[in-house]
């Protein structure tokens, strides 16, 4: 049994980063989202099979033109401070986000024209285009009585130190740098979960977290990196779980054609990008950087979203062929003219690029080092620099981007392709589009898929998009990292392993279904 002090009714989770904030509008860390999905309710949620299930809404329905979405709210929901939860709160939340363009959520409401209460129990959303993705799955509902009095400015600064939601757990305290505690919400509308408390403990180092799991200090961890995870797999009280995820890591090339770009223009040549893509053996990358815990990457929809993934035939795959890479470069006129081991273009400009990666993401740094070695073999010189996450972010997302190549990744908060596909669209330049990719054909297809309600038809479109983007090689998707988790078998049970992870996933149901092992 655990050493938790207050007995086995406490679920102890280990993680290696803290939420950035308790304000669901401004927070963007995954840790934050994990807490919000327990403290707040959304209208809809995903169950343990990643199927849509009701949450605050008992049911929902689309209009025939798919432009109107109505939710029927359950009547027994209450705010954790005792106030009743009404449709007004839902309308308030959606309006707030839409009107003030607040946070990540605003992207789901771009096409919303109105939101209103109907028949006392119903909330109706109207859009000017059909919506393939249901925003009810993403947006937490906030209490109007707390948030209504604040201006946009104030909301930006609001720490929300004691969040009040309507979810199964309520916030107790956050000991900065140490732990965050939730307790069971007695007024929760649904069946009471078994864990009376959930304590998230912060570990500065994953290895130490692994030790804590082994020694019984914690019951489950949110995520582990490959080599550390390998280190716990032989412990008899610990069960490891390896699941596909909704994320990928990639190498991005600065392909911005705008004169503002300060990136090396040679990278705008598709041949150079493709050659680099061919130089890299992604299988080996998975073996070395991930110690084998993942799948070699190709298109931008990760392995976790089985339904939406494009399966490329072997002969269309780019990679693991340095010979081909060199042939492409030779053909495109890049030769080592001065014998320094680095190829130059016709004007003598060397294929020498800057490569940046996040210093704290070990797998990225490892991949970058391996990429550097691989590129060297085909006569391309890369100089590696690691930056902290924020500097890297501000370097990449710059009006006048002054970089050549970076390494990082994308993670989708929903098992729907829309978000990831939206990254490289032209309108996302200045926002998510990290390589400044712009392809009108791709953009057109994106718009089309987002209003195509039929899954089969939509899949055809997304496949085509993936193919185009893959060929263009603005990204080298290195791998789809598996979600590596581990939990103790002697404290809690009934964990279900699902794509995206047991916990720390788009569903909260594993928390609600866990039961003590004894």
């Amino acid at each position: 049994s655990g050493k938790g002090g207050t007995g086995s009714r406490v679920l102890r989770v280990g993680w290696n980063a803290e939420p950035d904030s308790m304000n669901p509008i401004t927070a963007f860390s995954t840790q934050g989202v994990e807490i919000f999905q327990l403290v707040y309710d959304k209208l809809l949620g995903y169950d343990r099979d990643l199927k849509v299930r009701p949450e605050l809404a008992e049911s929902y329905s689309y209009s025939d033109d798919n432009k109107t979405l109505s939710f029927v709210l359950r009547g027994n929901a209450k705010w954790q401070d005792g106030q009743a939860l009404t449709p007004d709160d839902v309308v308030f939340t959606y309006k707030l986000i839409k009107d003030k363009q607040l946070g990540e959520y605003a992207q789901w409401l771009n096409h919303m024209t109105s939101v209103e209460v109907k028949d006392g129990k119903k909330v109706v959303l109207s859009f000017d285009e059909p919506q393939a993705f249901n925003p009810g799955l993403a947006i937490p509902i906030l209490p109007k009585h707390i948030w209504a009095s604040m201006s946009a400015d104030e909301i930006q600064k609001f720490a929300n130190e004691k969040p009040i939601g309507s979810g199964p757990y309520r916030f107790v305290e956050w000991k900065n740098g140490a732990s965050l505690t939730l307790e069971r919400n007695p007024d929760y509308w649904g069946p009471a979960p078994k864990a009376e408390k959930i304590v998230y403990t912060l570990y500065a180092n994953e290895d130490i977290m692994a030790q804590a799991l082994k020694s019984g200090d914690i019951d489950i961890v949110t995520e582990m990196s490959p080599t550390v995870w390998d280190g716990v797999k032989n412990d008899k009280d610990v069960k490891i779980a390896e699941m596909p995820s909704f994320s990928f890591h990639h190498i991005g090339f600065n392909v911005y054609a705008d004169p503002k770009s300060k990136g090396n223009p040679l990278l705008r040549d598709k041949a150079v990008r493709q050659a680099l893509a061919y130089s890299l053996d992604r299988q080996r990358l998975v073996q070395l950087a991930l110690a084998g815990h993942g799948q070699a990457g190709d298109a931008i929809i990760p392995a976790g979203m089985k339904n939406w993934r494009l399966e490329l035939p072997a002969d269309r795959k780019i990679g693991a062929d340095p010979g081909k890479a060199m042939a492409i470069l030779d053909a495109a006129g890049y030769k080592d003219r001065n014998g320094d081991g680095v190829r130059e273009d016709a004007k003598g400009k060397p294929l020498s690029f800057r490569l940046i990666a996040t210093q704290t993401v070990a797998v990225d740094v490892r991949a970058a080092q391996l990429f550097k070695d691989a590129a060297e073999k085909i006569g391309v010189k890369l100089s590696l620099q690691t930056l902290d996450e924020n500097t890297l972010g501000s370097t990449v997302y710059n009006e006048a981007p002054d970089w050549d190549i970076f390494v990082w990744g994308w993670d989708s908060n929903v098992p729907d392709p829309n978000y990831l596909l939206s990254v490289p669209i032209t309108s996302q330049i200045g926002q998510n589009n990290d390589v400044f990719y712009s392809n009108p054909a791709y953009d057109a297809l994106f718009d089309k898929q987002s209003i195509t309600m039929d899954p089969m038809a939509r899949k055809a479109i997304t496949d085509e998009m993936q193919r185009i983007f893959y060929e263009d090689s603005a990204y080298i998707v290195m791998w789809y990292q598996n979600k590596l988790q581990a939990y103790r078998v002697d404290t809690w049970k009934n964990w279900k392993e699902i794509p995206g992870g047991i916990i720390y996933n788009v569903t909260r149901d594993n928390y609600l279904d866990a039961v003590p092992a004894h």
Partner: protein
Amino acid sequence: MLRLEMILKKLAQALLTLLAVATFNFALFRVLPGDPVKLLARSGHLSSEAIASMEKAFGLDKPLGTQFLLYLRNVCTGQLGISYTYRRAVADILRERIVNTLILLALATVIVVAVGVAAGVLAASRRGSKVDGALVVTSLVFWSLPTFWVGLVLVIVLGVYLGAFPISGMLSPGSIGGWGSLGDLARHIVLPTITLALVDMGQFVLITRSSLVDVLTEDYILTAKAKGLSRREVLWQHGVPNALLPVITTTALYVSLVVGGAIQVETVFSWPGMGRLMYDAVLRRDYPLLEASFLLSAAIVIFANFLSDIVYLLIDPRVREA
């Protein structure tokens, strides 16, 4: 009285240094590259109005001079701004964290000073003996150890293999906190304290030793011996009190070292203190947090120096004017 005047003078000096640190601090963070709002926009979904409103919210839209004055005023009133990452008052975050660091540092300092001074006295009083030699060598070895490495080794040996002590955090996950957790805290504090103490002990031993060796050759020690005092009495009544003066200065300098040690120890042991906060703030470019924690740690060091000056003034009648 002269003493009071001296104390005031020292105080003025300390305050001046603090002001200089604040200025330096401010300049360092404003003049150098990195646009915090762009950093916040990392996730990319902020409109330009949102960015403008954020700039306004964090006071980044004003000219530098105004920002500096505002900054000074706020520092004086304890308003250290709002953390970019946590979006909470920096002062609140610091308040939570500083206590944890102080607990750790206080314990380590007490141990270092007590054991270090005792060992130094022992070595000096047995100068040239085997004990002395062993103490000097041990101190030099300790002095050469990287703090984080000692931490790692302790984690592996005492934590992982022997399982003798918890290796992470201040309290066990899920413990309730409060007075009941004192035992838990005690178990958690062992390894970080040992790490900090081990590494910094060496210097103390060496300094106490050399200071006492110096003092023991002074004529007044011979006088004391001639008065018929026993070796022990000579040592403790005349030797140590005089030898401690330089040790006090060292203690103050040690505080500046130990702030660095805290960052490492807190990183290795996931200790939720200021050191790690500062390190995280660096990684996140959380300027207000970084500034404030840097200022705070500088203030601690300056205060320690000030304190040592005062103690010096109080116990050494010779110190007159600087």
